[in-house]
């Protein structure tokens, strides 16, 4: 018996020894400690604008990893894509906070070794081990960028300058309003209600009890006649503003930048109620086929240069504050514009996307969960 066991151990050790050099990643506690040779390819699920040639081409040139990106329109779609085809179809995903925990608990992503990413040490403290990507001391990915969801308006047609989210809920711009086709939009309504109707007692727009949830849904129902189109892709909203179909709406800074570049008279701002926002993480699929290229990508997108390029292109804030001076070199004043290296207080003022769950942390399990959000949204759209 003993002999057989020993033979087994030997066999396992031999297999491991054969596998390790093949994979190019040697492991101690399950995490790789070195990055091996690139596999020549990398398949990404990303937000539109996250894989621009200006930083993807140099990456491919330096590492030999060809990048194939699939754009997703919503966090839900990202989760679904990462699970499609048994989970090995894509290597990485640029998940926002409302998707990252679902991916972690669904075992769709694997822990990464942050020590292999030199720039991780330079990140702002709040994004080194944020609760949306670090569970039980394990890092399930590397933070990337963050930013607010803003109010976009046509400067010629909307005067005076709107200061409150009430602009997209009041009949003044009937038929000219557009908001994202996304259940998380309920949180935007809840954020507005938390200020305009304090009696509801909304503290966190992602933790809503039945009563608060109903109020938010009722606000969105009243908004329905004002809506020109619920935009599904960023390019949809860009079209709407270009063609004059919409003049005010909720947006990401990416659309604003694209529209301004196309000489459309638009601006965006954070209204007085504050804003919801996103903090994105590059996560590694549990069944990634190209882990070495993935680590190289993590290293690459964390460097100050790439962080600055992406921040300016998309209109968001880099996790690595070393990017701030480079942002100013690329576009004067852009570091301040996108709050690069902003204070912890500003970071806290943005209500970052997270997955609504029934257990909302107050000991009671009376919050509305994400399935209810999603069904309410589908029914609301009609």
């Amino acid at each position, binding site marked *: 018996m003993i002999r057989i066991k020993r033979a087994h151990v030997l066999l396992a050790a031999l297999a491991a020894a054969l596998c390790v050099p093949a994979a190019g990643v040697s492991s101690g506690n399950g995490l790789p400690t070195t990055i091996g040779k690139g596999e020549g390819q990398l398949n990404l699920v990303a937000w539109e604008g996250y894989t621009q040639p200006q930083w993807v081409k140099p990456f491919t040139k330096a590492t030999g990893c060809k990048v194939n990106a699939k754009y997703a329109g*919503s966090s*839900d*779609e990202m*989760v*679904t894509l990462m*699970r499609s085809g048994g989970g090995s179809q894509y290597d990485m995903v640029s998940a926002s906070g409302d998707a990252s925990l*679902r991916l972690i*608990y*669904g075992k769709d992503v694997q822990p990464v070794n942050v020590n292999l990413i030199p720039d991780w040490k330079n990140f702002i403290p709040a994004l080194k081990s944020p609760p949306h990507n670090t569970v039980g001391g394990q890092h399930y990915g590397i933070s990337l960028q963050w930013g607010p969801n803003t109010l976009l308006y046509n400067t010629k047609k909307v005067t005076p300058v709107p200061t409150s989210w009430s602009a997209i809920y009041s009949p003044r711009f009937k*038929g000219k309003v557009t908001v994202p*086709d996304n259940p998380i939009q309920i949180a935007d309504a809840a954020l507005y209600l938390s200020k305009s109707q304090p009696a509801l007692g909304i503290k966190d727009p992602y933790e809503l009890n039945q009563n608060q949830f109903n109020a938010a849904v009722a606000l969105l129902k009243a908004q*329905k*006649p004002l*809506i*020109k*189109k*619920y*935009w*599904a892709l960023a390019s*949809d909203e860009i*079209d709407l503003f270009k*063609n*004059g*179909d919409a003049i005010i709406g909720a947006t990401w800074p990416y659309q604003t930048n694209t529209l301004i570049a196309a000489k459309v008279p638009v601006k965006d701002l954070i209204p007085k109620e504050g804003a919801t926002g996103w903090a994105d993480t590059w996560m590694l699929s549990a069944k990634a086929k190209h882990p070495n290229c993935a680590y190289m990508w993590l290293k690459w997108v964390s460097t100050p240069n790439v962080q600055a390029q992406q921040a300016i292109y998309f209109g968001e804030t880099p996790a690595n504050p070393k990017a701030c001076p480079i942002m100013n070199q690329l576009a004067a004043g852009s570091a301040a514009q996108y709050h690069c290296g902003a204070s912890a207080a500003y970071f806290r003022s943005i209500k970052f996307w997270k*997955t609504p*769950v*029934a257990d909302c942390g107050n000991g009671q399990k009376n919050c509305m*969960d*994400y*399935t*209810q959000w*999603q*069904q309410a949204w*589908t*029914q*609301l*759209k*009609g």
Partner: protein
Amino acid sequence: MSAINPELGAPDRPLRAARLRISGFFWRHRWAKAVLLLAPPLLAFGFVYLASLGALFISSFWTVDPFTTEIKHIWNIDNYRTIWDSGAYRSIALRTIGIAAAVTFTDALLAFPLGYFMARIASGRSRTFLFVAVLLPLWSSYLIRVYIWRLILNEDGVMNWTLGKVGLPHLHLAYTNWAVWIVFSYVWLPFMILPVFGALERVPHSLIEASRDLGAGGFQTFRRVVLPLALPGVIAGSIFTFSLTLGDYVTPLLAGGRPGTQFIGNVVYSSVGISNNVPFAAAFASIPLAVMAAYLLIARRLGAFEAM
């Protein structure tokens, strides 16, 4: 020496004998030939089509975990209950069926005169030209045709520009159900024209002459002779336009988008592609299946299958 017969070419002999035996077998057993001929398509049909339909139906009785959105194999009819209880899902189903019917009716109205002209009036050359004109749009991408309509219908688009030039007020059709109806009617029109043309072409000229000889006027001949004989063609075309509209989700997504423009397909798409709720999507997808089954039964009664 004894094994080789120079006349017959010995190496061929066993092969030829085998061939003869096989063909003899098939000649004696006609059924075997039919089985061999039909087995591959029938197997493909059974496994790929019926099995996936069965899987779809079975999964509609499961649920998903709300947090991880993984499918749980617990039998229940909650999905069907949700659809039945919710006014929103009911109105989405009714809207889908209603617009599919409206598109079918519109296409029949548009296709009949054109089909009639092509079949009975046009000469060889102009008929060819019309055929190409009808089929040409099918060669371009469906998406391009939908996006072109978006350019036409949007606020600063071609339609409003034209209306403004002739002094008419602007129409706000962009992203409404009207836009969805117009785009659907346009993209599926060829699928109505072709069967209508086929049916009209088969109406014997002698019958029309007989009708005239017996004193019927042009309208009466059309109503009592041409129309009844062409009706199966219209029904055949309607199967295409109705089912294509019923199952589509791209046009409502691109040409629609206002509140109240979702189709069954959009709910299925967002249930699968966005929230990973395959069981609910499967339950909702059985509605068009049931509608189409009923529609096909009626169409068969009306003789549409003879016209295809």
